[in-house]
């Protein structure tokens, strides 16, 4: 298996910006909308190259969602960009009726997800968005782990028919997946084989999972690491195949344990192959101000937390 190394830390939102720029050059139907956060969403280059295909909506997210839905009527593929909080909770009913129930081909692209936007605090963070979005019938939910994957996902969803929620973050994080990767919606990725425990991670927690696996190796525990970038539809098969071998699992996500990846995995397991599971996630709480690293530490969202969860779950194996 590949040894994953950090090719140089970058923010996942810049991966989105790079993917959007490429789409601007390759797909004339792609249009972009933003609610006064062009710089934060890294949309500048797309706008520079395609001024007529960009819609600055102003601070009016509800209107942005409706306009995006309308743009699909006429064959456009709209990519909306704002923070994850303003992309979901703020406009839930607009997404529900005008996009999801109306089967509109809108890509809701959400930066600054989780706690890692940091100092702005809980008003601008969100730990509930995966749950909100995965509950919507027909909505595909993707949470990418690094720059390269975010870029690949952005490009891939333009050709994927139907509404998509693409979630990424603000801080610079390790960029470790291949530059030239093919992104397949709904397909989990086996990053590292192991025998004693399965770690299923999404978003920023994937790099932490790889770090945890290294620590565990020194302790004589062999961890299998799976990157689930698509939370809905979930790749049930890759998870079930892994737990059949390892017999226990830890899920890791920068999200509330309620409504997140962990609960989706738990459902698959309980229906098919009941397995001891521990959840690395926030514990039904809001975030707060702080640096991303401080917040990840305080809320138990790092490799140390994953290691602790694994030490717990392996003891629960029958």
């Amino acid at each position, binding site marked *: 298996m590949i040894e994953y190394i950090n090719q140089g830390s970058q923010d996942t939102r810049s991966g989105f910006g790079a993917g959007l720029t490429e789409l601007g050059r390759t797909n004339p139907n792609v249009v972009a909308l933003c609610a006064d956060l062009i710089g934060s969403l890294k949309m500048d280059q797309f706008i520079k190259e395609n001024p*007529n295909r960009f819609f600055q909506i*102003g601070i009016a997210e509800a209107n942005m969602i*409706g*306009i995006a*839905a*309308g743009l699909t009527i006429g064959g456009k593929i709209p990519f909306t960009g704002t923070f994850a909080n303003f992309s979901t909770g703020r406009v839930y009913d*607009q997404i529900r*009726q005008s996009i999801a129930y109306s089967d509109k081909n809108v890509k809701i692209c959400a930066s600054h997800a989780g706690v890692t936007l940091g100092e702005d605090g809980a008003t601008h963070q969100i730990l509930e968005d995966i749950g909100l979005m995965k509950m919507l019938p027909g909505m595909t939910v993707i949470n990418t782990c690094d720059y390269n994957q975010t870029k690949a996902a952005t490009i891939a969803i333009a050709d994927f028919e139907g509404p998509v929620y693409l979630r990424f973050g603000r801080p610079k994080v390790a960029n470790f997946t291949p530059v030239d990767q093919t992104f397949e919606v709904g397909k989990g990725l086996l990053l590292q084989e192991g025998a004693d425990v399965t770690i299923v991670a999404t978003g920023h927690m994937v790099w932490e999972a790889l770090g945890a696996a290294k620590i565990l190796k020194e302790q004589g525990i062999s961890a299998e690491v799976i990157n689930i970038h698509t939370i809905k539809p979930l790749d049930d098969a890759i998870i079930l195949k892994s737990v059949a071998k390892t017999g226990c699992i830890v899920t890791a996500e920068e999200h509330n344990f309620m409504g997140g990846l962990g609960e989706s995995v738990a459902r698959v397991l309980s229906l098919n192959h009941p397995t001891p599971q521990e959840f690395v996630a926030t514990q039904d709480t809001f975030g707060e101000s702080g640096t991303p690293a401080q917040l990840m530490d305080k809320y138990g969202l790092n490799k140390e937390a994953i290691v602790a969860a694994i030490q717990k779950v392996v003891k629960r194996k029958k």
Partner: protein
Amino acid sequence: MQTQTILEQTVSQVRRDILRMVHKVNSGHPGGSLGCTEFLVSLYNEVMDLKEGFDMNGENEDVFFLSNGHISPVFYSVLAHKGYFPVKELSTFRLINSRLQGHPTTHEGLPGIRIASGSLGQGLSVALGAAQAKKLNNDSHLVYTLLGDGELQEGQNWEAIMYAAGKKVDNLIATIDLNEKQIDGPTDVVMPMGDISAKFLAFGWYVLIVKDGNNLSQIIATLKKAKSMTGKGKPICILLKTEMGNGVDFMMNTHAWHGKAPNDEQLEIALAQNPETLGDY
């Protein structure tokens, strides 16, 4: 005025359809539907440039969005008589497994519907998106939308109203059903909205007023005038002063029939006031 006669016949038949549909399932919204019958009959039969058949993208034809989705009975009847789907399907309104849901939806694939509506305040934004898609596609056709006046209490409308003028979306004609009534009573009592015309003007729209929004010739003349004003850098608003429950004497001058169906006896009286013209479903 041969055309006028056919339109009048259609209006009478659509009213009958509305009444029979809501009566059959003892639910639905006859008041606003009856109030907007003349408008929608005129729009679809005299004003909009429509292709044969239906495709979702609506390229090279005018498109319409109903924002106040609760007046689905009138929308369904007008669409059916225009040939989008069989008139007899009106008999399935609000029944299980029907394409004619309580509020309009694309979800069941009913031809003629391009967006779900019912949760209020979203249609104008959608219309703005479709209008801008038309501009990108160099499609000179227009986008129409209809909103309730009570619906203007939803804040999203004002985001959209600001945007439309600010971004010069001038291929859009938005009509407000100004019946001055909503579920809980007169709009002036529930939530006084002041001078709606002045508000649209202040935001930078053209405003046209139809004094009798149930008069076919006034409606058609105003819609044609609105069409002539498109492409001049401003969105266009038509304030359509309608009578909720129009065409049924006991349903007029009250908000009581906003969301209530007539009983058997009331239906008979109401139908007697609106003769069958094109054939009941």
